[in-house]
């Protein structure tokens, strides 16, 4: 029974609890056990079995009273440790926040609890969401449940939402929250054979989410099906007056409107995404994706996104610039780590605290960001990058005059062994080359699993939609899901 329950997704659990097939408590207990059994994956920084049980009991009690249940009722999820959770340690996977327990709950997590979800624990991630392999966490690497055929090497679950992708792929959580600044939902989803959607910038409140790059950060769900993503995104999204960049729009009924019938729809294929060095198998999966969507009734059209090659460099100016400022608050004065050497003054305390508290990748980005904003360099870097950002957005606007949704690979390669790229930050950054343009433009984008490559590793396909049109993205994702029939799952070795 336990094994059966942990194979269920969001919709199946919700519907099963609602119909009385099983209780929410049974579900929570099954996942708590799976989490406890999977410590070697290092997906969680802290586990919160009591939270999951309490939420489940509350749902079971509500059902017993005949009350209407929430859209996530009885579903225990993993919470990326970038979301502030009341009374539960929130670290952003950084030593500088170790032991920090917020006296507040992020809007997104509160929305999920209000919809009846419970929390299995706080998921590991790249430190401050900076990384593409989940190797920058102060709390250790997350290990992907997948193995490359013929190898026992520990594989990367992608990043920064690597704890989320591992937990969902390994069936130790039916779904998890992620955040995506430049691909941090989509890339790990692609690496682990699951779905993940980053909605339009402003759909999900950033209030209570530890900030990386404010103009790019956006929360979204990671789950094993398009339907599950639609359900969970509906619960997460919504206008929040506490976030000045939040979209003051009603949340559409994405789940109810889901349709894999793409007749009359046009799918754009951006020619500039055909880059040198892209894995042949990735290109083949892209061709396969086109065929699936054509089969669903869509017309395939060529589109151009001419500034694509400038997107990644621009991203690596804008995001570190914002991060260098956003992370200034971790100074040892009010909360978190404080390193005060004997006889030290304020400046010494800052230096010692941040030296000890922040990881190398975080420091690298703070330095880059500080540099590009400094006097004499601002115009050459930051101003130029903002111009590129505007051009990238305009590319999409023009492309969407000819199509409803864009299809592209999510990543240029499949997952790689941990340690493979740690000495080469640029190679690591290139992982997000297909993900970053949609982030710069603030557009909804999703990764859905397509197939396994010759190494037995999952490959994802990316769908990018017009602003506010998550529905087209989800619909196209559903069309691919139905045709790909991706049922592969990692064999349990942990």
């Amino acid at each position: 029974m336990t094994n059966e329950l942990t194979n269920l997704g969001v919709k199946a659990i919700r519907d099963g609890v609602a119909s009385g097939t099983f209780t929410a408590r049974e579900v929570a207990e099954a996942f708590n056990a799976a989490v406890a059994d999977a410590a070697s994956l290092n997906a969680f920084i802290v586990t919160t079995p009591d939270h999951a049980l309490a939420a489940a009991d509350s749902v079971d009690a509500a059902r017993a009273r005949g009350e209407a249940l929430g859209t996530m009722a009885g579903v225990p999820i993993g919470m990326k440790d970038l979301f502030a959770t009341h009374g539960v340690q929130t670290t952003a996977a950084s030593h500088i926040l170790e032991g920090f327990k917020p006296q507040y709950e992020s809007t997104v997590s509160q929305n999920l609890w209000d919809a009846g979800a419970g929390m299995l624990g706080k998921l590991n991630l790249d430190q401050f969401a900076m990384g593409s392999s989940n190797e920058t966490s102060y709390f250790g690497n997350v290990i992907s449940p997948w193995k490359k055929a013929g190898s026992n090497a520990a594989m990367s679950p992608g990043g920064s939402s690597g704890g989320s992708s591992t937990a969902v792929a390994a069936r130790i959580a039916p779904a998890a929250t992620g955040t995506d600044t430049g691909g941090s939902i989509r890339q790990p989803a692609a690496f682990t054979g699951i779905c993940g959607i980053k909605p339009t910038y402003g759909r999900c409140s950033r209030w209570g989410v530890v900030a990386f790059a404010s103009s790019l950060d956006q929360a979204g769900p990671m789950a094993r099906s398009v339907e599950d993503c639609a359900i969970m995104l509906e619960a997460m999204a919504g206008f929040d007056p506490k976030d000045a960049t939040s979209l003051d729009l009603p949340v559409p009924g994405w789940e109810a409107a889901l349709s894999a019938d793409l007749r009359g729809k046009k799918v754009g294929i951006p020619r500039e995404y055909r880059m040198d060095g892209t894995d042949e198998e990735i290109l083949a999966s892209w061709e396969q994706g086109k065929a699936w969507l054509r089969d669903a009734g869509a017309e395939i059209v060529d589109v151009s996104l001419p500034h694509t090659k400038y997107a990644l460099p621009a991203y690596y100016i804008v995001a570190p610039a914002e991060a260098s400022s956003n992370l200034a608050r971790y100074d040892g004065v009010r909360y978190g780590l404080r390193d005060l050497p004997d006889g030290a003054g304020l400046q010494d305390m800052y230096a010692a605290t941040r030296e000890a508290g922040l990881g190398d990748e975080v420091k690298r980005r703070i330095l880059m960001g500080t540099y590009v904003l400094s006097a004499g360099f601002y115009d050459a870097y930051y101003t130029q990058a903002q111009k590129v950002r505007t051009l990238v957005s305009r590319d999409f606007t023009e492309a969407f005059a000819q199509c409803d949704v864009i299809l592209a690979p999510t990543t240029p390669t499949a997952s790689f062994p941990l340690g493979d790229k740690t000495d080469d930050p640029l190679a690591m950054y290139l992982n997000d080359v297909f993900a970053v343009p949609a982030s710069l433009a603030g557009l909804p984008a999703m990764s859905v699993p397509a197939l396994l490559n010759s190494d037995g590793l999952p490959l994802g396909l990316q769908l990018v939609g017009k602003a506010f049109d998550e529905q087209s993205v989800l619909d196209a994702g559903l069309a691919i899901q139905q045709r790909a029939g991706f049922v592969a799952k990692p064999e349990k070795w942990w």
Partner: protein
Amino acid sequence: MTESTYRIHGATGEWEVVIGLEVHAQVTSNAKLFSGASTAFGSEPNCNVSLVDAAMPGMLPVPNRECIRQAVRTGMAIEAQINRWSRFDRKNYFYADLPQGYQISQLYHPLVGEGSLTIEADEKAGIPEDKVIGIERIHVEQDAGKLMHDQHPTMSYVDLNRCGVALMEIVSRPDMRSPAEAGAYVRKLRTILRYVGSCDGNMEEGSMRADVNVSVRKPGEEFGTRTETKNVNSVRFVMQVIEYEANRQVELIESGGTVVQETRLFDVASGTTRSMRSKEDAHDYRYFPDPDLLPLELEDSFLDECRASLPELPDAKRARYEVDLGLTEYNARELTAEVETFARFETLLAATAKAIGKAERDVATPVANWSLSVAPGVIKSLGDEADPANATAAAQASILAMADKGEISGGQAKEIYELVLRTGRDPQEIADTEGLKQVSDTGAIEAAIDTIIAANTDKVEEYRSGKDKLFGFFVGQTMKAMQGKANPGVVNELLKDKLG
């Protein structure tokens, strides 16, 4: 325009002083600029601090509309350009009183652009004519917290109550040429802010502070290098800083040195300034647009409301007092200098005009004299015996109405007001029961005059034969007989009749 003649007399000749001021004015609002926390002054340390103010992880700023409104109204009051599109920038630096590690301010696109205010001519202060002082911009920004260094032998304490409170930074052009002009500018700005209600102007509590930019030059030459003295919190200190800095710079230059661009601090005790940091150690603030906030776009309806809610401003009010109410220049200036003064005056004026049944213009001068000299004189003479609660407009209007009708004399008016202030009794009732009324009853006065004429036939003869000076004698005798309560006008008239 006649330029200021204020000069520093150096060994090499005369030097002109060039002054620009950046005034930080705390916006009057219940809540801070980007958080819901209270702005109350004087609370226990760290009681008015929200999660946003403390820069907890994941906290976000949300602009307080009222703060924006007050800054826009202030801009309108100095006839400045209001920028319908403005944006907040982050000014990045580390300090313990700045939890975010950056101050949210406006560098590139301020809310308010070019405007001006006029300082009035003041011969005695060396301001020969009214002078227009340019204002470059007003932007809105967050205040920082406060460090306390005297609470612990080795540690400093941080109080974040003030952190995040909205400030307007009002930046003047370098248009001032003397300490007096700078003083007049700060006073005028303070008056305007208080009229508008956008800042309480309370310099002791730090609601208004000035950064004073001073340079010197030989008249007619290019601007010299300026120094900036930070956080000066009174008009007198602003003037002291300018005088000290100007003299220091002249001495420095004349002894072969050069003025360096630097930030200086004012030492109140010694009245001097000292270097805080030079341009070389200046922070690189790495300003960039705050990505947590969208640009501020102001709509017509918002601007209309801001404009409609502006009160009559000091210059307009003063002109109206002179032209429409017929007040002297002195009275008009004195009455319009402070919000409380004109508010009291206008209330009393309306009440008095109504009590008498005349137009405001026809009673404005006695009401002005009463407000500026008579009433304050009475209050001062009573000291603690006066209960301010008794100084109602109704009571004062009643006294002024009795005086207007000739029922009481000026002296009686003061006596009645004294009793009003002491006891809160009704002025009319006091006049009636205390015998504080002039007698205008011609019968009684005639009877008294008849008696006096009968008793002084010799003097009557002398008067009639041309000794006019004796008229005063008869007035005095009559007033004495009437125990000083006769209406002098009636006495004069009757005496003239009877003496022929």
